[in-house]
């Protein structure tokens, strides 16, 4: 290493150590306890701060550290071994992050198939980010494929021989994720750029060799640096740590994520809804405080249609739009009440989670949107026949008829369709 390379190294060493080692203990207060994929997901997504300002502060600290270090240590020391172990740290940090997202897609639950409410919402009434999620959700095979690419790239990072290939795949893959976050107004552009910065740092190390071999087409020597173990037990420690990493971030994570995908995917609520009610219903009659409101294209009080999901959520559409819940980051909630994937980014339906008192035939409704927390309803229900639901209370009386709705999205376009 030449003089300026040593200074550069000191800077990047300090910067990336600050970025990756878990110094921000506060972050871990929010990590759910346990040893399943939920806990590991949040551990894998650790960043010292979720904005670019933190990066700037860390860079300033690293710069100050570089100056002190350079003054204290002006021997012509080569940092080859330290550089090697920095790359090891970053490879594993990157692998954990990439595999965590990869396995959520490989066993497709990050982007589930759209709910009935989502299928029955106008395209223009969604946020771009929600459209991105449900557009990918309609093709689970595509999602699995993307997850496979991501997981493979992460696994390639675990060996120094395949690391440049893994980093190369991540640069293009996560580069695309980053741009998608910007384009679709997603909330993870900082985190994706964080992963990209690590992948870039990793690939820079091999860049000269790559260009020399495939572009300049010259004879090229391989990376001369091998890890040095002063004592034999250090080698065993390394093997042990590697095994532990794979056990948790691939094994445990993979098994629990797969089990969740099979049994209880995390995006939609688990609690079952009104039995055999799932579907979209036309609002045939709507009476409020004794006044029957006819069908209208302009009335903002009258309901137009109601969706009952398979789980305990119903959603109502009328001639108005609402302030949508703009959540746009990936969260794994354990409680039904917090699971807002179905309602976030939707401005034309109001979503209610409900508790069904089966003895008294009463639904206790709670608006799921954080902007309408006060919106609660208690509705009696009657089901005179299999396609009719009557909802009522002191002021409201609504008659719902199930629609025999067919979706080209589900039927496919290979045969002629008349809808």
């Amino acid at each position, binding site marked *: 290493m030449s003089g300026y390379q040593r200074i550069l190294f000191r800077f990047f060493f300090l910067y990336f150590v600050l970025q990756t080692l878990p110094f921000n203990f506060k972050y871990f207060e929010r990590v759910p306890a346990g040893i399943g994929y939920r806990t590991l997901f949040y551990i894998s997504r650790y960043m010292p701060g979720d904005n670019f300002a933190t990066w700037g502060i860390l860079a300033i600290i690293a710069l100050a550290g570089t100056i002190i270090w350079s003054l204290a240590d002006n021997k012509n020391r080569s940092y080859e071994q330290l550089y090697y172990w920095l790359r090891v740290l970053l490879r594993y940090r990157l692998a954990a992050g990439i595999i965590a997202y990869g396995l959520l897609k490989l066993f497709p639950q990050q982007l589930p198939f*759209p709910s009935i409410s*989502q*299928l*029955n919402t*106008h*395209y*223009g*009434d*969604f*946020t*771009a980010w929600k*459209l*991105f999620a*449900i*557009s990918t959700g*309609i*093709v689970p*095979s*595509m999602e699995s*494929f993307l997850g496979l690419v991501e997981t493979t790239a992460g696994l390639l990072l675990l060996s120094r*021989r*395949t690391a440049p*290939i893994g980093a*190369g795949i991540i640069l*293009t893959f996560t580069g695309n994720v980053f*741009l998608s976050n*910007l*384009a*679709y*107004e997603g909330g993870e552009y900082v985190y994706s750029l964080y992963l990209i910065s690590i992948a870039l740092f990793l690939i820079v190390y091999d860049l000269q*060799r790559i260009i020399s*071999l*495939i*572009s300049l*087409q010259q*004879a*090229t020597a*391989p990376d001369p640096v091998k890890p040095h173990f002063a004592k034999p037990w250090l080698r065993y420690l390394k093997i042990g740590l590697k095994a532990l990493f794979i056990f948790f971030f691939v094994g445990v994570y993979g098994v629990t994520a797969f089990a969740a995908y099979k049994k209880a995917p995390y995006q939609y609520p688990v609690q079952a809804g009104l039995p055999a009610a799932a579907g979209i219903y*036309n609002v045939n009659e709507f009476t409020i405080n004794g006044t029957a409101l006819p*069908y*209208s*294209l*302009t009335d903002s009080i009258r309901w137009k249609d109601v969706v009952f999901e398979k789980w305990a959520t119903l959603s109502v559409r009328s001639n108005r*739009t609402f302030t*949508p819940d703009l959540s746009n980051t990936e969260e794994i909630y354990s409680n039904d009440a917090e699971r807002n994937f179905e309602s976030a*980014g*939707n*401005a034309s339906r109001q979503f209610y989670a409900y508790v069904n008192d089966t003895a008294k035939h009463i639904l206790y409704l709670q608006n799921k949107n954080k902007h309408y927390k006060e919106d609660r309803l208690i509705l009696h229900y009657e089901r005179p026949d299999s396609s009719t639901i009557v909802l009522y209370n002191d002021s409201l009386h609504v008659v719902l008829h199930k629609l025999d*709705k067919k*979706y*080209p*999205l*589900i039927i*496919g*376009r*290979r045969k*002629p*369709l*008349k*809808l």
Partner: protein
Amino acid sequence: MFTTNWLRPGYRDVYDVARFQPDFINVNSESGRWGIASYASWGIALLVAIVGALIWGWFDKKRKEYNLLYYWLRVIVRYRAGIGIIGFGFTKLFPVQMPYPSLSNLLTDFGDFTAQKIYWLSIGIVPWYQVFAGIVEVTAGVLLFFRRTASIGAVLLAGALANITFVNFAYDGGVHVYSAYFVLLALFVLWYDVPAIYKLFVLQQYTVPVYHYPAFNKTWQRVSRWTLKWGAFFVFVVLLFYLQWWNYRYDPYKQPVHKAIAGTKGVYNVTEFRLNNKVIPYSPQDSLRWSQVTFEKWSTITYQVNKAVKLDLSNGGGSPKEDIDRNFELAGVAGRRRFFYYEADTTSGTLTLRDKNRSALRKGSTDRPNTKKEKDHPLVWHYERPAPGRIILYGLNDNKDSIYVILDKVDKRYTLSESTIEAGQY
């Protein structure tokens, strides 16, 4: 390819050259259109190649190597792949391949689109992302033109197009053969470099790459090489850039070019609807009364009525020249909506309308522009604009019943962000 007018090239001509692919056989079955059997032409090419290789091998036994021929084969593959992907890339770099959803599309329920349409729209709503994808594709293509950068171009191309091939399978996009064709070409180019990359990085050994380049000793050789190389560069990078810019600016090929009647663009509620002079009140269940109408920024009117229609299941592409055949806005869209192309006579206040949905005339869900447009009879309606935001339409509908419709503009706000790039002149 031979119908191209080479003296006055338009973007369609250069693009058609870029899109050429051998088509030996089409298997007439579901799999032949959507699945594995659609690769039958590849199978035939493979068979011909095997038989040819056996015969060639028999007559050419003494041959030790084909270094020179291999070089030229790679040149052909590189240029074929490069030209094709640049053709595709420019329609994204100037974002017209996936247009921003029309008003009628914004008012359609998510579940009323086909999967193919969902994917195309999901790119259409992020034009800058489309531009970026175009830059990646054009860059991959340009890198393939030069032997020192060809491998990097091939990696980009293989990655991007493998993704697109998978998209086409998953979303039933129907372009899975043509996209896989590029993956094949890119992998062939890359194939040459894989052993060296493997040796240097995975085996960590000293690696000496071997490349055979023909010597261009004679002047005519150097001149021809230079001319062909930079000629291709000029036609498919410089000229096509200009042509696609022009297309984006003046004739975005998936959107009609004719402007709407000034000031009509918008969404309208059907306030009153009379059929044979009888007022029909609004009901979402009624199969005769319209509910909502859109006037697009181009000359398309749509209305919604609760009556099933045969869907146009094409991709909405094929770069048709006439506005009436530009069916992207209705291709793959359900939601019980009728689409009409119109010509307006603003002095007499008449609209001449023609139904844009030609699916009844199409054989299957193929992408060929229809050719039987003379068979339909246009509708002639009068229109009045008594007040701002109000339009009255009257005339005979396609059942020869008289209609009188009062439309009032809705101040519709969308949650989805508006497009930041607008193709065409409206």
